[in-house]
């Protein structure tokens, strides 16, 4: 038997075994559309938890079928046919002598994929709830200020550009750090988890995490329902904001994230609004402070005014009191002066009286004194004495005091009480 004969035999037997198309479940592990419009797929079935393929087959969607199948799939699932999707395919088993075993895809049932996603979603939700982490990120307190933002996205993604443009329009400045990741395709889950781990390592530098994609293909949102990714998001220590961009069912990542927004632009708007709220809050506090301070100032001003008025009143009062006191003093002074005058004049009269007495006394004494002197002097008058019988003996005009001064024959003058006589000494005196 030749090889050709053997291959033809296998082909005949297969055609006999699969006369009609069959529905088969598989995951797309590779997918390529060539220049002529045919789509070549590699299908796998992964077994158990280790995800190692346990079956593999090549498949092809001829260009006669591919556009209608792809469109139908997109319309039902909202997602493009892509690697990683689990699909239900209607296939014709074929065998070619030259190319071997192959499955020709006639149709794909999108509702299976939807159901698979839903099942994965439900499993992830149940597991996260069982872990007790489902609400953890949502229960994180949203910081008052969201300014230092770690972004998980793809640099080339239209969603990231939309996000940045929206922020640029805002009157606030944000500090954006991009952690570049694949946001779609088979590697997306691991890539996003790595980005989250990188952010967690520097979490002090950020206020929140923004996870965005959008624009372009809507295929393969399944990574946002995967347990591994959603577990990371749920337990992430910073609030996670999602803008994954789809309008079908929420992904589990959206559900566990602190805040879910439809699109990257919406995330940017949210950040700006938060900032505006904080700004308004600041304005409010400033206004409150202004109110309180101005009230306080007003209060102080009034106190000052009252104090000033009080001082003025006190000054006026004091002035009035002092005036009254002065008036009283003046009145008293006048009274005192009169009293004093009366007393003075009385005293003066008394003094005059005393003076009169004294002077009279003085004059009396002087008179007595003079009278006494006069009496003495009167007694000493020589005429008076001579009248008693004494005589003054003079010789040569001089009074003679001693008898021895006279000699016999001396002539003397005798002055008597009345008249004078001349006399001659006749004796010789006693020796």
């Amino acid at each position: 038997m030749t090889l050709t004969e053997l291959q033809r035999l296998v082909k005949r037997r297969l055609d006999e075994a699969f006369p009609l198309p069959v529905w088969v479940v598989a995951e797309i592990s590779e997918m390529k559309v060539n220049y002529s419009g045919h789509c070549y797929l590699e299908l796998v079935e992964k077994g158990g938890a280790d995800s190692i393929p346990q079956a593999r087959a090549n498949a092809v969607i001829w260009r006669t079928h591919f556009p209608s199948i792809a469109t139908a799939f997109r319309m039902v699932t909202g997602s493009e046919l892509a690697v990683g999707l689990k699909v239900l395919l209607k296939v014709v088993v074929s065998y070619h002598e030259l190319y071997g075993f192959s499955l020709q895809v006639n149709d794909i049932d999108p509702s299976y994929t939807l159901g698979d996603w839903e099942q994965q979603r439900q499993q992830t939700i149940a597991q996260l709830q069982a872990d007790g982490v489902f609400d953890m990120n949502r229960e994180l307190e949203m910081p008052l200020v969201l300014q230092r933002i770690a972004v998980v996205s793809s640099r080339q993604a239209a969603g990231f550009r939309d996000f940045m443009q929206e922020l640029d329009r805002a009157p606030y400045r944000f500090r954006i750090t991009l952690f570049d990741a694949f946001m779609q395709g088979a590697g997306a889950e691991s890539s996003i988890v790595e980005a989250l781990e990188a952010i967690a390592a520097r979490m002090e530098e950020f206020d929140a995490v923004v996870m965005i994609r959008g624009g372009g293909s809507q295929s393969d949102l399944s990574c946002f329902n995967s347990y591994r990714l959603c577990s990371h998001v749920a337990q992430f220590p910073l609030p996670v904001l999602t803008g994954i961009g789809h309008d079908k069912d929420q992904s589990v990542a959206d559900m566990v994230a602190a805040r879910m927004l439809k699109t990257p632009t919406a995330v940017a708007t949210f950040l700006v609004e938060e900032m505006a709220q904080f700004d308004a809050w600041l304005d409010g506090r400033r206004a409150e402070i202004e109110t309180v301070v101005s009230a306080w100032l007003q209060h102080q001003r009034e106190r000052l005014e009252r104090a000033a008025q009080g001082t003025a009143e006190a000054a006026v009062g004091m002035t009035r009191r002092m005036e009254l006191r002065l008036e009283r003093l003046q009145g008293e002074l006048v009274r005192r002066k009169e009293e004093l005058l009366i007393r003075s004049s009385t005293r003066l009269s008394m003094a005059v009286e005393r003076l009169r007495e004294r002077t009279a006394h003085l004059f009396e004494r002087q008179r007595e004194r003079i009278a006494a002197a006069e009496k003495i002097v009167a007694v000493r008058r020589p005429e008076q004495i001579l009248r008693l019988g004494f005589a003054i003996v003079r010789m040569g005009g001089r009074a003679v005091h001693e008898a021895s001064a006279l000699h016999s024959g001396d002539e003397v003058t005798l002055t008597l009480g009345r008249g004078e006589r001349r006399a001659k000494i006749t004796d010789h005196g006693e020796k």
Partner: protein
Amino acid sequence: MEKNKPGYAEAMAEVEAILEKFNQGAMDVDTLAAEVRRATELIRCCKERLAKAEREVNEVLNEENDGNEKSC
């Protein structure tokens, strides 16, 4: 002589001095006569002064008594 009349106190002092001399008795009869004359003169002078002074004082005191606002 009239113009050189001593004041009352001087005159009285002189009179006293003369009286003292009298008491001591050391005096010539002629000097005595002169002193007596002198003393008599002084006494007369003192009397006059005293009378004048008394008159003046009484005048002043009477003035003080009935018209003390006169010169103050």
